[in-house]
C-alpha cells in the first residue's frame, strides 16, 4: 500500500466541488439559450419549465459563482497577507520554459519532461483561464441581468457586446473544461480513470514523485529542517 500525502485542504476541496456543481448548472441552463434552435436545447428548456425558469436558475447560479469567486479572492488575499501561502499559482518564467520543454519531450526532441513544483504550467493555465473567464462572465452577466442600470453608466452598445462576450466566453469555458479538464483529470494515462485527489485531498507519494517532484523535495527538505524528520504528510498538510 502506497503512502499518501495531503495535497488539497478541505477549503480547496469544497471550492472545487462548489465550482464544479455551479459550472455544470450554468452550462445546463446557459448553453440551451445560446443554441436555442436545437432540439436538445428546447428539450432542456422544457425540462426546467421554460426559458424564464432557466434564466432565473442561471442568474441564481451566476450570483453563487460571483460570491464563490469573491470569497476565493478574499481568502487568497488574506492567506498571502498572513504569509500562510506563497504565490505558488502565479506563472513564472519557469512555466514558459516548462511548457517548451514538455512540448520538446512530446515531440521526441528531448528525453525527459520538465519537472514541476506544486502546480504545473497546465494547471496554472487552467486556473488563470478560470479566474479571467469568471471575471468576464460575472461582469457581462451582470450587464445582461441589469441592462437598464448598465445603460445609465455605459454606452448602450456595451449591452450587445456583453451578450456576445458572455455567450462566446461561456462556450469557450465549456469546451476547455470538457476537452482539457476531462482529459487531464480522467483520461490522462497518469491518472486514468479518475484523479480523486481534489475530492479526497490525498495524493499518492508515487504520483507526487512523478508529477510534482520539486514540491516533494521542498516539502521533505523543509520538514526535515523544521521538525527533524517529521512525516512528509504533515508537512504537506501545512503546504495546503
Amino acid at each position, binding site marked *: 500500500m502506497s503512502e499518501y500525502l495531503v495535497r488539497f485542504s478541505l477549503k480547496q476541496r469544497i471550492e472545487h466541488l462548489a465550482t464544479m456543481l455551479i459550472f455544470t448548472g450554468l452550462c445546463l441552463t446557459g448553453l440551451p439559450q445560446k443554441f436555442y434552435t436545437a432540439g436538445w436545447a428546447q428539450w432542456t428548456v422544457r425540462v426546467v419549465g*421554460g426559458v424564464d425558469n432557466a434564466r432565473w436558475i442561471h442568474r441564481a447560479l451566476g450570483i453563487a459563482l460571483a460570491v464563490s469567486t469573491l470569497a476565493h479572492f478574499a481568502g487568497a488575499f488574506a492567506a498571502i497577507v498572513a504569509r500562510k501561502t506563497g504565490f505558488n499559482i502565479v506563472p513564472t518564467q519557469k512555466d514558459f520554459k516548462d511548457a517548451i520543454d514538455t*512540448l520538446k519531450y*512530446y515531440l521526441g526532441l528531448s528525453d525527459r519532461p520538465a519537472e514541476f513544483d506544486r502546480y504545473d504550467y497546465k494547471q496554472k493555465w487552467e486556473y488563470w483561464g478560470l479566474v479571467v473567464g469568471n471575471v468576464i462572465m460575472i461582469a457581462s452577466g451582470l450587464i445582461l441581468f441589469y441592462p437598464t442600470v448598465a445603460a445609465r453608466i455605459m454606452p448602450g452598445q456595451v449591452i450587445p457586446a456583453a451578450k*456576445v462576450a458572455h455567450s462566446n466566453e461561456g462556450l469557450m469555458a465549456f469546451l*476547455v473544461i470538457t476537452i482539457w479538464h476531462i482529459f487531464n483529470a480522467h483520461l490522462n494515462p497518469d491518472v486514468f480513470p479518475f484523479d480523486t485527489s481534489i475530492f479526497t485531498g490525498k495524493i499518492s507519494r508515487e504520483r507526487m514523485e512523478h508529477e510534482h517532484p520539486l514540491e516533494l523535495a521542498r516539502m521533505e527538505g523543509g520538514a526535515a529542517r523544521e521538525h527533524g524528520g517529521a512525516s512528509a504528510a504533515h508537512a504537506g498538510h501545512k503546504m495546503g
Partner: protein
Amino acid sequence: MNRIGLALLIAAASLPARAAIPAEEDDCLSCHGTDKTMTLDLPSGEKVSLFVDQEVFAKSVHGDMLRCTECHADKTGYPHDSKPFKTRRDVAVAFYEQCKKCHFANYTKTLDGVHYALMAKGNTHAALCVDCHGSHAITRPAEPRTRISETCAGCHEPVYETYTKSVHGKALLAGSQDVPVCTDCHRAHDIPDPRSGALSLRTAEICGRCHTNEKLMSKYGLSTKVVDTYLSDFHGMAATLQKGKQKGEGIRLAAGCTDCHGVHDIQKTDDPTSHVLQANLVQTCRKCHPDANANFPAAWLSHYEPSWQKAPLVYAVQLFYKFIIPFMVAGIVLQIALHLWRVVVNR
C-alpha cells in the same frame, strides 16, 4: 374494370340535376321571390325579410349549385313549421351549422378560432359564417382584396380606421396587392385570440413571410435581414423558446415585431409617428423596460449586423472570439494528441 366503370356511370346519372333555381322556382320562389314585404316578425320586435332576390342569388357563388332546401333543410313542405326564434340573432345562429355540410374543413377551423370561443362562452355577437360571407349574396371574399378588411370593419371599425392610416393600410387603399389585409396576419377561420400574446410571439414568422421575400422587399428598398437579426438577438431567442406560451401572472413574453413597430398602426421607420423612429425609441423600450434611459436604445442594433461601421464594439468582441475559440480548442487538442502520442511511443 368495366363493372366499376358502369357503376360509376349509373351513380353519376342518378345524381340530382344541379340547376337549383329553375327546379325550385315554382315552389319556394313563387312566394319568397315575389313579395318584397314578406317578413318574419320576432318577439324582439325585429323583422327578418323573407324575400330572396333571384338575380342576386343567381350571381352568387352558389347560384347554380344549391337548392333552397340544402341550407333550409327543415323546410320540407307547406305550411312551414316556424322555429321559436326570439331575436334576429337567433335566426343567424340557427343557420350557422348549415355551411359545414359542404365546407367542413373551414368549419372545423372556426372551432379553433376566437369567434367560436366567444360564442361558446355565450357571446351571441361573435361572428358566424354568414356575418362575414353573407347568405344569399355570397361572392368570393377576396374580390376585390380591399373587401376583406372592409368585412372585418363591420364589427372592428376602430381597428380598421387605425389600419387604413398605417403604411400597409394606406398602400392597400391606393391599390397595392403586396400589403397584408386583416386575414393575412390573423387568418380567416382559425383566428387566434390576439390578447393571449401567442400571436405576437409568432410575428417573426408572420411578418417574415413578406419581409424575408427578396423580390417583394427589393421593390420597396427594404432589408430582408430583419428576421434573422431579430432572431439572433435576445428578444428573438427568448420568443423562440417561449413559443406556445401565453401571457399570465408573472409571465412576460419577449418582444416580437409588433411590440416595437406597432400592430395596426405600423408606419415607415422614418415616419415621425413611427414607434421605432430614433426620437420615439426610448418611449417604445419603456413599454417593457420602464427605467430605460436615452442610452438604452443603442443596446438594440436596429436590425443591423455588427460591423466596424455599425456597432464596432460588438463587432470587435465577435471577431476576438471568432479567432480565440478555434485557437484555444486547436491548441489543447494538439497538446493532448502530442501527450498521448508520447505515451504510446514510450511503450
